């Protein structure tokens, strides 16, 4: 995205369900490229959006500046660094609020690459905005974890326990490949290993312990309490 030629569209879209590690990826991208990142809030207006972007550029703005001035300033600031990307997290909220046009304007005027990060439905939402969707250069869906990724997570989050491949694969599958759930299960594994003072864990040692799948509890049948039987009259 950064090295694209200037005539190419400047938007990238990263989408995926929650817990796939989009946020971690955005931190990584931020640290690597010195990108600016804003996370859109529910209560945001156009003004807050522009103010937050300017704040990320270490610019101070006066309270009562009109939006057009803020927008001009943001454009000029972004244009000063046309290789520094702007990451907009929760970008689907921008589409919902009809504020995506501001971001498009900023991108077009400044030429800086803009990465929109959002939920799985973000591409579909962007398609409804005619002027947006053909300005997207790359769509990159977040991928579920494979065994190698799960291994990397295990090394980072449960470094003291050697988790064998069979258990790790089971954890990965039961977590649906979602990094966040895998980490919760790894925490449990680390705790189990500590309690049993084990150095290594495999499927046999894990036994019948539950996995964290994020499934909500099944509805209870509240009518199933024992009733006093009515005596026949």
């Amino acid at each position, binding site marked *: 995205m950064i090295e694209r030629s200037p005539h190419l569209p400047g938007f990238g879209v990263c989408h995926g369900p929650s817990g796939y590690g989009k946020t*971690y990826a955005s*931190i*990584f991208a931020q*640290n690597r490229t010195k990108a600016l990142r804003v996370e859109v809030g529910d209560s945001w207006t156009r003004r807050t959006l522009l103010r937050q972007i300017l704040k990320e550029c270490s610019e101070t703005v006066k309270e009562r500046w009109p939006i057009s001035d803020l927008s001009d300033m943001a454009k000029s600031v972004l244009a000063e660094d046309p290789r520094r990307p702007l990451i907009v997290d929760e970008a689907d909220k921008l589409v919902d609020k009809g504020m995506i046009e501001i971001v498009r304007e900023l991108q077009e005027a400044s030429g800086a690459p803009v990465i929109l990060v959002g939920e799985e439905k973000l591409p579909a939402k962007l398609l409804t905005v005619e002027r947006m969707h053909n300005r997207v250069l790359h769509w990159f869906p977040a991928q579920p974890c494979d065994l190698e990724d799960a291994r990397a997570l295990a090394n980072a989050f449960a470094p003291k326990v050697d988790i064998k491949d069979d258990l790790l694969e089971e954890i990965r599958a039961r977590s649906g490949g979602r990094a966040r759930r895998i980490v919760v299960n790894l925490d449990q594994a680390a705790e189990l290993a500590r309690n049993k003072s084990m150095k290594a864990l495999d499927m046999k040692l894990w036994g019948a312990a539950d996995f964290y799948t994020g499934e909500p509890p099944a509805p209870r049948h509240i009518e199933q309490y024992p009733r006093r039987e009515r005596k026949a009259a």
Partner: protein
Amino acid sequence: MRHNSQHYVPANLPVRVPRGQEGYWQIICQLADTKGDFTINDVDDQSNVGRGDIQVYVWSLSKAGFLDIVRAGKANRASTVFRLVKRQRIAPRVRRDGSIIPATAQENLWTAIRTLKSFGLRELAFAATTEDVRPTYEGTKRYVMRLTDAGYLVITSPSGGPKGATWRLKPSMNTGPKAPERRAVNADVMWDPNTKVFVGAEPIATEARQ
């Protein structure tokens, strides 16, 4: 003759002279806007530090490809004329051989803290890791403790469990993109480069010993 000088009221005007690499970069960008090509002398004129520092920085910038040499100096290197070719807002941090200095671990950690909002130490160290910067567990802990002492973070669950403690960034202390850093002035407090204030405990006035 003290009474003779009473017409001259000493005025204390704080004038900020750009210094340090950030300052030189600012001067270079301004020169590029107003003058176009420039020499090391032009940069030196607008700052008040020794030439050596500026010379080193300008030559490293040219090795790193931020500056082009338009005309090499004939008699001495000082008359070399440079042109700014790669512009950016943040001053590039370069070594003498022109290689880029990667971000510090603290900067990576601060970025991760601002994004994660709530985190444990292992999680934070993992999130802040890139190819060239790998914060250690101990270093992460030290920085988090410093930020907690200075009032940036609150502990949301104390340590003791297998997962260890978790912290949260106070929303009001999410001051901006630059990482607060430890500065030994006369007192040991945190410096916030966004709001440009020292944060934390009341600085205890002590003599700075050389």
